[in-house]
């Protein structure tokens, strides 16, 4: 079974996001693997361990600096890592480049399964996985929290507002992973050393269509409020009622 996993890098949560001249200052940002992508990769590696002869390939559309994140993916159990160097500026372009890269890598065939993270923590669009599935022409389910795979069918669960959907689909399919799906393994020193020896394959695909969405501005968001401290619960209720029209 050919399993493709899409990963991206995001600023780690402790990073300071600074601004210089209305642009993000990345100099103090430490990039890590997107948390949801770790669930996607873990699930792929678990399936590989179950279905003999499976090959897990990770794909990332990112600058060359993303090699470290791809090495981590190899250390976590991926067999091959592909860095796609095309410049992209919106989720549509990312999905299109991923789709071309997979088509090129698998020689026009479709992988049996594609895993993605539900969304990236920086922009939280959650657009790439369903877009990629639509471009590949395969069914997809977003934000899965449980998967049971047989050689014929995939049974998955996903959280919806106030409940759970139980969904069935066939191969090939794309599944995007949500927290709760599994607990990603820790990499051992040995696996990290072995990953160092593997090559990161580099791929460049023909340029994609124009971006469909452009970020026109970005500015720091000041969240500070002035907190009114109260010592009495009755007083709190009165304030919520009178100042905030609650209850």
């Amino acid at each position: 079974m050919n399993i493709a996993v899409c990963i991206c890098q995001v600023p780690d949560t402790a990073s300071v996001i600074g601004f210089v001249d209305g642009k993000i200052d990345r100099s103090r940002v430490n990039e890590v693997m997107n948390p949801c992508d770790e669930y996607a990769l873990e699930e792929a590696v678990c399936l590989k361990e179950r279905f003999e002869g499976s090959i897990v390939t990770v794909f990332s559309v990112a600058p060359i600096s993303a090699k470290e994140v791809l090495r981590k993916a190899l250390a976590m159990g991926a067999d091959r890592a592909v860095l796609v160097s095309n410049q992209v500026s919106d989720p549509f372009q990312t999905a299109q480049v991923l789709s071309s890269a997979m088509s090129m890598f698998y020689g026009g065939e479709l992988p049996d399964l594609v895993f993605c993270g539900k969304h990236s923590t920086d922009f939280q669009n959650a657009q790439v996985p369903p877009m990629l599935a639509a471009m590949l022409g395969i069914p997809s389910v977003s934000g899965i929290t449980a998967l049971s795979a047989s050689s014929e069918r995939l049974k998955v669960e996903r959280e919806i507002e106030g409940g759970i959907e139980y969904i069935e689909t066939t191969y090939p399919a794309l599944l995007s992973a949500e927290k709760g799906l599994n607990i990603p393994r820790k990499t051992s020193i040995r696996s990290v050393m072995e990953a160092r020896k593997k090559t990161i394959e580099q791929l460049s695909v023909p340029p994609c269509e124009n971006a469909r969405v452009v970020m026109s501005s970005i500015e720091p968001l000041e969240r500070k409020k002035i907190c009114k401290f109260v010592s009495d619960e009755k007083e709190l209720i009165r304030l919520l009622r009178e100042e905030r029209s609650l209850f």
Partner: protein
Amino acid sequence: MNKFLVFLEQREGIIKKSSIDIWNSVQELAAVQGNSILSGILVGPADLHQVEGSLFGDGAIFYASDEKFRLYNPGNYVRLVADTMKRESCTSLFFADTALSRDLAPKLSVCLQASLLSGCSIFDAATACGSCGRSVYSGLARASFVPERSFRIYTIMSRATQSSSVSSAHPVVIPLDQCSYIDGEELFPVVRRIVMHQGRPDVAEAAIIIAGGRGMGDANSFELLEKIALLLGGAVGASRQAVDEGWRPHSEQIGQTGKTVAPALYVACGISGAVQHLAGIGSARTVVAINTDPYAPIFDVADYGIVGDVHVVLHALYDALHDFLKRQ
């Protein structure tokens, strides 16, 4: 002439309140803009009496009432909505930001070659540029996005607000010819069944959220939060720490790796206020924080604060609320 289409999402035959809110806000937008026509599309059988009087303004609601559309099926939904968009020459499509729309809208955007703007908190779709703004990078920044295509799709964060009435007119329901969308073949993925958690609103949709963090100490202490949530008709939320400790299910987690919420009232109990948690509550209208540490960062984003042991404060708060509501 602007032609807008609003997707009215039903779950178990009930039209979602978030969809109704979006319908009403787009209706307001259309009224301000002038020269605009608003239509709706309701996919799957639903109780239309339930929304009588809550959908303001005029316009048509295209209704696909076949049982086959009751459960979400991406293949059938994409075909139905895309064809309706084209047939009615609509240029903008609006969704409430839900689990369903986050799956459906990207697929539709590929099919319609549309610009997709997800999770918009403020939007200006009536203007020529149709831009939308929202917070990014865990709520540390606000960005503005501009669609480049003439077809535009928006998923909009619902805020727990009441829209004011635009007109006394009411939309007309027009049944859709569904024959061409109903074929014998099963299109995967197929939702086999849905299991709903009973009794309480979901944390993503609740107007009042009582959330607990590590400071709650153990799983049992959340019973108190549940009692208060029940009293106020709200939902219980949790910080990542509380979920990772196994005290609460992941579905209640709020923050960067959990849900983004926009309640009218958010009560943070024993939550210190890490950036990752604050990422999920940026749109909460009123924030109350209860914490033993007066220097906890949660107080920097709170409107009201009580410094003290959460258990003691919550017991007193429960009793005070109970008395207060009894007197109402």
